[in-house]
């Protein structure tokens, strides 16, 4: 794709349905895409929590035939995609619904690439050379257990990292019933991962009016709703706001690329098997302080997104980034007071000093593009290692 330094490209292909009884509109949307036999993918955990029943209820009055697969594991692999490929073909499904975040969307994207062409297309997607033909209709119904990749072109299927813009789900359904209350740590991790994606989008050198708009919406929803979502998990509006924020931030992220906080957070998370959002939250203040040292910081509007218009209007010129750091630290301290075993340092999540050497390289592999400045990533890592909030 031609793109000069002065030209930007932005795309958000998903239609979103958000709010009361959004699920009930799904059959009509599928019919509008000529899909009448969807296969619903989910995890055993979500099925046990009643999601299968809720989905069946949403389709009860429709003419659509729905299939369920409730066995998506936490770390799906290619073998599972092969199995599901056979199931999809044998039973004549014509579309996919991913019910749940993270691994469910990973499988759904990979399976959609396979069933829309052939299983070998996964290799092309791994090489980033998949033809741009339309895939089968894919609907995402994510919860708050997010990976940050749900509404993006990316999917990590074991050792296979897929990149395919056409794999982004065409429909997103956010319904109170399918965004149930999670444990506080999961909710906190979702909020921090989303905030990190939004903040790094607002600092990104390739940012544009649209990524700014989406990142602004994400950061505002997080800052205005995370307290209520944690203190009163049954307050469904706040949960839905966080789920909306995750979509907005992922869209900005998909149109730019991961920054050093996101990539390092993801690398540490994989090393220590801990939620990436929790790690990113511990890195965020340090990453922002590093931005303050730059001569030209692109994030003039960062505090507008994090602090809101009223507070932004009162901040002295040039103090926005400092105030943003303060807000992020306040947020971390608040989470620590609300969640008993909340990590206060990256040392609390099982990271060893000997891991530090390899992590910048691992962070760079998260984007797969060699775009990160490794000395900066190492500096960020060292700062986080030394700090206890």
């Amino acid at each position, binding site marked *: *794709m*031609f*793109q*000069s330094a*002065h*030209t*930007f*490209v*932005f*795309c*958000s*292909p*998903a*239609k*979103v*349905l*958000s*709010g*009361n*009884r*959004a699920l009930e509109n799904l059959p009509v949307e599928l019919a*509008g*895409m*000529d899909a009448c036999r969807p296969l619903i993918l989910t995890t055993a955990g979500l099925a046990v929590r009643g999601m299968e029943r809720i989905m069946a209820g949403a389709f009860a009055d429709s003419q659509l035939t729905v299939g369920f697969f409730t066995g998506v594991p936490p770390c799906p692999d290619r073998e599972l995609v092969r199995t599901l490929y056979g199931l999809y073909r044998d039973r004549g499904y014509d579309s996919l619904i991913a019910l749940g975040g993270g691994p469910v969307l990973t499988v759904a994207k990979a399976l959609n690439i396979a069933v829309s062409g052939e299983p070998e297309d996964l290799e092309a997607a791994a090489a980033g050379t998949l033809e*741009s*033909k*339309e895939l089968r209709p894919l609907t995402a119904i994510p919860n708050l257990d997010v990976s940050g990749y749900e509404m993006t072109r990316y999917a990590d299927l074991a050792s296979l990292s897929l990149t395919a813009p056409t794999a982004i789900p*065409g429909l997103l359904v956010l319904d109170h019933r399918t965004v149930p209350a999670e444990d506080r740590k999961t909710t906190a991790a979702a909020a921090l991962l989303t905030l990190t994606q939004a903040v790094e989008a607002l600092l990104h050198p390739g940012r*544009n*009016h*649209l990524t*700014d*708009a*989406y990142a*602004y*919406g994400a950061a*505002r*929803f997080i800052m*205005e709703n995370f307290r209520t979502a944690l203190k009163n998990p049954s307050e469904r*509006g706040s949960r*839905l*706001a966080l789920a*909306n924020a995750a979509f*907005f931030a992922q869209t900005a992220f998909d149109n730019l690329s991961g920054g050093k906080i996101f990539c390092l957070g993801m690398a540490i998370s994989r090393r220590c098997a801990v939620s990436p959002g929790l790690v990113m939250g511990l890195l965020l203040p340090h990453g922002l302080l590093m931005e303050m040292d730059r001569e030209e910081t692109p994030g003039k509007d960062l505090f*507008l997104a994090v602090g809101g*218009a*009223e507070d*932004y*209007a*009162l901040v002295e010129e040039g103090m926005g980034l400092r105030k943003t750091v303060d807000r992020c630290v306040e947020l971390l301290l608040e989470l620590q007071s609300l969640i008993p075993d909340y990590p206060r340092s990256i040392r609390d999540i099982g990271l060893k000093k000997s891991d530090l050497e390899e992590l910048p390289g691992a962070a760079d592999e998260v984007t797969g593009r060699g775009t990160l400045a490794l000395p900066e990533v190492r500096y960020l890592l060292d700062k986080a290692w030394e700090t206890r909030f």
Partner: protein
Amino acid sequence: MYLPGYYEYSCRVKIVAGHDALEGIPALLRHVGARRPLLVTDKGVAGAGLVDIVRQAIGDRLEIGAVADDVPPDSDLKVVHRLSALYRENGCDAMIAVGGGSVMDTAKGINIVVSERAEDLMKFSGSGALKRPLKPLIAVPTTAGTGSEVTLVAVIKDHERHLKMAFVSFFLLPDAAILDSRMTLSLPAPITASTGMDALTHAVEAYYCLSKNPLSDVTALAAIRLISGNLLKVVRKPSDREGRLAMANAATLAGMAFSNSMVGMVHTLGHATGSVCGVPHGVCMAILLPYGLEYNRHKREVVMGELLFPIGGPGIYGQTAPEDRTNRVIAYVRQLNEDLHEMTGGRHARFLGEVIDREGNPAVPRERLPDIARTALGDGSIFYNPEDLDYDDLLMVLEAAWEGMPLDSGRIRKG
């Protein structure tokens, strides 16, 4: 940030924006497997040299199958069918629409006919008749105003049967919108002014009307900020490339906002004024926007006050008491119209009584106001306005807008 109980939002159009965005067209079409597009435009656009700029930017990297440069100002069913035949005869496999609303509507109409192998476009009117993707369509807007490059609607008129048919489908969205500063550099000042006010109205009504949602809000706020920072600049200095590009971005952002949130009484009255008196849409929007704000303020005071931030910037916003913010927003819009009037040598009308037609006669005779009010009652946008309006309310607003006087707050309905 406001989260409604339920909302839907969709804008899958790929946005390509820049001073040399046009150069991206061949790669965009190749990416979707198209090699021979029909270029759809109108005589005004072609005469202004804009088609030449597009062709030059494309160069020999793409073969244009045919050029249809006679789209009329009002979309027409017969033209759609004739150009569909042209598309087929020349073995085209995609379309590039270069122009304003009518060109976009016509291209969308052709796309239905050629993709569905239809004989009669009218079989696909209404909502939901299309079930699958159409041929690739690239939209190149030549005004910064309508936002039709990101809307899923096409309005085609059957002039023989006096029918105006709407086509609504997710599949009517163009594949890409190309926002290139070269497309608006030669736009005359009065049209720059009215189309810019059209975009501002889209964004402002999207923000305060009833179907607002978080994504229409963030795109509307971004649009308003760009317009308040750039509209006067480009009217003053038409060759300001950065300002032109900012306005093109703003119009698209505003298009995304209003097409996902609907609009209110400014459009209700504007559509009717256009229909009864033939006044260009942007002119109506510019004149009526302050009245939409005044009429609805008792129901949307806080939301309207928030608009002072993108309009005035953080300094003015912070220094203004919350209860005074809406007043300043309304005053800003009125002052903007005054400034545009002055900068265009009086050609940007500030009130309906000031609008003149091509012959220099008053375009909106006062005695036509009752006809406009009656016509407005049938416009769908009236349902999305925060406060109710009946015939008397519409006429009261029109009379004030005809004279250029603020509304008498004592006469505004408080439902």
